[in-house]
């Protein structure tokens, strides 16, 4: 099996900032990402849940981004730019990917 090194960057970000983040990712030339719904959570700013809510003020999304290791740094710099003043967390794990030609 032909596997390639990659970084799995997972950004849990406020729903209102999601579009700004993905726009920036695209501008940074990040060639792919997937957005997963988050239905609730808890942090220093308290507990929340999307149940029954209509507004977008509450709530986070999880943006998962597989990138070549050498691109991770630049990506994270950019993410921090959007994130600074906002709540949210970012984690990076070492991963292997199939079909690296797609990244």
């Amino acid at each position, binding site marked *: 099996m032909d596997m390639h090194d990659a970084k799995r960057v997972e950004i849990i970000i406020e729903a209102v900032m999601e579009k700004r983040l993905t726009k920036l990712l695209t501008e940074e030339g990040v060639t792919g990402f997937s957005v997963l719904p988050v*239905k609730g959570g808890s942090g220093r700013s308290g507990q929340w849940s999307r*149940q*029954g809510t209509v507004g977008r003020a509450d709530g986070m999304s999880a943006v998962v981004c597989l990138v070549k290791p050498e691109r991770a740094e630049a990506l994270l710099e950019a993410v921090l730019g959007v994130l600074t003043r906002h709540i949210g967390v970012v984690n990076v794990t070492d991963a292997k990917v199939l079909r690296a030609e797609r990244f």
Partner: protein
Amino acid sequence: MGSILDLAAANLLSPIILSFALGVAAALARSDLNFPEAIAKGMSLYLLFAIGFKGGASVAGHGVDALLIGSLIAGVILSGLIPFVAYALLRVMTKLSALDAAAVAAHYGSISIVTFVAASSVLDAQGIGSEGYMVAVAAAMEAPAIVAALWLVSRSSAGAGESGGMNGELMREIMLNGSIVLLVGAFLIGGITGAEGKAEIDAFITAPFKGVLCLFLLDMGLVAGRGLRNAKGTISTALIGFGLLMPLIGASFGLATGAVLGLSTGGVALMMVLSASASYIAVPAAMRVALPEANPAVYLTLSLGITFPFNLTIGIPLYIAVASTVIGG
């Protein structure tokens, strides 16, 4: 006064208020009763579409008059002015920081469409007519308050740097936010297709309307009750006082404006409702973007947990009674 209390009591025992109360009670009792987000969103889309369409169709019926333009302009001014009053009051009455005060102020300048919908349905039940374009006024009042509040922040934090960011992208987002677009769009469709168009879809937008409103308020009760439960400690007595006083102040502004404009009794009542109500969808989202350092627990709890229930239960019948007394009808 007696009759106002009677009206308030009658209002309190209507299905829509009781549904809201059920929701609050269930949340406080930590029942697992809940609505899926998609269903809440779906009901809100339905209500916006229906109320917008009916407003437009009614304008088509009664014709556009000079008052429409005047009311829209008045709405924009009210929405832009009320935040200054709210801000001053908050700084005097409470210990909120300038930032939090500005964020809260934005909510009170803007409007709550469900409060408007609930008031419309009470007016309907009492057989009091109103200008169909009040729904357009509601849409016009959503955004100016946000601009006013951001201006307040940029002034108060002078060289403070980061906060208070209003930019083109945010402005576009606010003006084109889903509820404004749907409300105005449905209003225009109702206006264009008129009575004929309304007849085609009346069985959808009118007959089940009040029932959907009940379920939606039940859900809002659940969310508000959960918010109150989580916000324990965030909201001081002074803040609660503000949350009860401010709608009355807003309503007075609405009353004066409506009377000066020469709106009908129902129109004045709705202008009071709009001025008295506080946003809980559009403005919170804008605040998260523009003033992320402001504490959402404060403004969401005040708007949804204090002022909304107050308006729903006591405010609406009070405003209608006052409008009836002042304007007649």
